[in-house]
């Protein structure tokens, strides 16, 4: 006799109602797509550890002042007593101690731990906002192009091609450098101006990537039966777009956003490294790295900001990958 159900605690001779009520005696409820995906994600240990790291980083960034008060010194405070006045290198090589967890910067003696922690604020803020901007523009443009087709699609698609062909890094360098000179006209200054500019430049030029994906998905979705059904019931363009099609795009948008964030973290670091990011003395990871290059003989200075970028990017990527697998099990790895 074969045993089609070999669940522990259940028997082959179980009465029909037991099957209906489930092994534990509760009624089986229909599970939504979201719940199914969540269950899948929960089982993916790699993705979950990525998610925990991401949450941890976000908490650290939000509570940076508290973290620094507990474990460090103010990020701008000089500790020149920690520095060898002759060689400008921290006494003892790195200055790592229970008081200075990551050691101190050469020359100034500022607490590297605090600077890395505060650097996470800028990095994550810019990465999140820029991603949001890209996703917003990309989704709107993609959905419009895909749904309406024809000349609208043609124009938007060519626009995407133009944006994709841009030498983004070079352009961003020039743009941030130039725009930052117009403090008075723009009405903001200092760090907030730089942050706004970086969000704009990084976000605005990255939308075509997500735009293309959304356009492709929309193209296939608009031919589906449920869209036809809605249309035959008299639904119009905007309703179909936002009520019928958009909810089906949430999965790719989410996945793409989590994969875009680490890219943007790297891009912000690159811009700061090249000197157009948020200006001194506000710490950023890229800025710390570019300082560290001068002192390559004291490796701790490069190690900690570098590790911060590495861990952030890795965690987001692992989480993003897992999320994609969970939301779309058919996709091949």
């Amino acid at each position, binding site marked *: 006799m074969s045993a089609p159900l070999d669940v522990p605690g259940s028997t082959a001779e179980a009465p029909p109602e037991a099957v209906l009520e489930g092994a534990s005696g509760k009624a089986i409820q229909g599970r939504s797509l979201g719940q199914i995906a969540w269950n899948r994600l929960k089982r993916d240990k790699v993705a979950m550890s990525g998610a925990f790291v991401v949450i941890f980083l976000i908490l650290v960034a939000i509570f940076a002042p508290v973290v620094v008060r507990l474990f460090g010194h103010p990020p701008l*405070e*000089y500790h020149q007593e920690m520095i060898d*006045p002759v060689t*400008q290198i921290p006494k003892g090589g790195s200055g790592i101690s229970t008081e200075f967890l990551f050691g101190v910067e050469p020359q*100034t003696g500022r607490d590297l731990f605090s600077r890395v922690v505060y650097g996470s604020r800028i990095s994550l803020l810019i990465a999140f906002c820029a991603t949001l901007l890209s996703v917003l523009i990309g989704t709107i443009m993609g959905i419009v192009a895909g749904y309406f087709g024809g000349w609208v699609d043609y124009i938007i698609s060519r626009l995407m091609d133009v944006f994709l062909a841009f030498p983004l890094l070079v352009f961003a360098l020039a743009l941030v450098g130039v725009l930052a000179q117009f403090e008075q006209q723009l009405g903001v200054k200092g760090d907030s101006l730089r942050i706004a500019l970086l969000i704009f430049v990084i976000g605005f030029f990255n939308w075509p990537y997500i735009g293309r994906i959304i356009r492709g998905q929309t193209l296939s979705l608009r031919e589906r039966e449920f869209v036809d059904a809605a249309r035959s019931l008299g639904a119009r363009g905007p309703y179909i777009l936002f009520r019928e099609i958009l909810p089906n795009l949430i999965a790719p948008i989410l996945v793409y956003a989590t994969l875009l964030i680490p890219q943007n973290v790297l891009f912000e670091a690159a811009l700061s490294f090249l000197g157009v990011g948020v*200006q*001194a*003395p506000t710490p950023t990871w890229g800025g710390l790295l570019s300082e560290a290059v001068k002192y390559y*003989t004291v490796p701790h200075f490069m190690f900690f900001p570098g590790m911060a970028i590495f861990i952030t990017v890795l965690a987001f990527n692992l989480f993003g990958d897992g999320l994609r697998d969970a939301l779309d099990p058919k996709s091949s790895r």
Partner: protein
Amino acid sequence: MKKKSALAVTAVGAALALGLSACGGGGASQSQGGGESAAAKHTMNAALENVFNPSDKKGGTLKMAISEDWDSIDPGDTYYALSWNLIRIYGRPLVTYNPAPGAKGRELVPDLAESLGTPSDDGKTWTYKLREGVKFEDGTPITSKDVKYAVLRSLDKKTFPNGPTYFNDWLDLPKDFKSVYETPDVNTDQAIETPDDRTIVFHLKKPFGGFDNFAALPSTIPVPKDKDTGTKYREHPIASGPYMFETVQTGKQYTLVRNPHWDPATDPIRKALPDRYEIYLGVNADDLDNRVISGDLHVDLAGTGVQPAALGRVLSDPQLKERVDNPTGARTWYIPIVPDVKPLDNVECRKAIIYAADRVSLQQAYGGEFAGGEIATGLMPPSIDGWKRIDLYPTGTGDLEKAKEALAKCGQPNGFETTMAYRSDRPKEKATAESLQQSLARVGIKLNLKGYPTSDYFTLYFGKPSFVKENGIGLGTHGWGADWNDGFGFMSQITDSRTIRESGNYNISIKSPEIDKLIDQANEETDKAKRDELWAQVDYKVMEEAFVLPIVWSKSVLVRPTGATNVFVTGAFDMYDYLNMGVA
């Protein structure tokens, strides 16, 4: 033996030579056995006051490198100290600085001229006589007309924007003379006369006792008129010195070989030891330091000291430390305090900034005691003739009580807010701004930092009075080095308010009729000691009025080459002398 083989290889191919010079480096010091064994040993600062490893041995390839490039190799278009030092291997000015260590290196000696200038007409007219038998690299004799042409062409600041403007300001030029290219036919004899092929006479607008310093400028290096190609002359300047250009690859490499028409009998100051010079441009700065340390290259041409990474290495390793020379330069790094910007128009507010500044931390920003320099108490550096120590302000980590007192007197007891400009691509100046921001915050003075690109810092931003005023930039930071080591050579360009132009100013903060009056007195004074005293008074006044916050009198950590001879730091440029260095 080693050196011989290295030589043979250089003759075969320059490319191969790179790898081999490292071998030549190691055996350098002991192979110097015979003759002058009294040579200084490798100890720190051995080449400051003495010639290290003296020798007359000819031959070899001297390898130099620089991390960037400098303005130009055209003698009429260059304002870099390293260039004024190096240019003398291929060009001969009328007079030049004595190739000797330390302060002796600041003495002027005749070069192309037979003797130093002869003044007449109360110092308004200066006459020089050229040596006999001097020739260009193509064998044509050098005449006083070539010197005159060279000086006149350098006056054209549209074609040659980089050089100093002393001749423009002092020569008694005819009104209708614009440049040798625009107005070639105008008679300029009222400014420079050439009565015969060996005599040249300069006529000035007003008397000037220090004219020999002008005659030592690279723009008196003769240029043959028929070979002058304007801006293209830099592709091959015609040599009058012992070496001539073999190849000129702009931004990459220069090579120089012996000039067959240079006659040692006409030149008592040059030893002309190497057979060849190879100068590499655009070498990564950290890589350059490592190659000098390993002996693969002889000199970092820039002469401004090693990068922070190498600094930690050479100062902490006792063996490398022996190879360090640590000269003090005639250069001050400072922070101008702009009186045009409120509330800095009040002297007490300016003083508050000086009192509150952490001078030690500023010194650290420039690299500390060895790589940065001594904490400066005045604008004028100690190597300038007539220098006096000024003790108006404390030089410790800041006197907050006095700063608060000054703020109260200024009517800003709770501090104020202002902006500080710095060159964003210069790490030391960025560190300076950050340090000052920290220390001034202690008394409630809030600094907003603004970085500007180096290339436009003086022309569009901090050197432009209208920009500074409109944007309320109260502080900036930069440095100034002497063109030569007297009060005029250091102070005249940065303290005289009447030299302030629409843009491109190095002086933005020192504006005082009293100081201008002192400068006039100094220029008219013919007695050198009294003149020096007047310049010292200018320095005192600048500090009393708190127009600048001086940071350091610059020092640099130079790494002495292992494979070179006649190594010494010349007091004229405060870097290794490039005129008589040879290959061991």
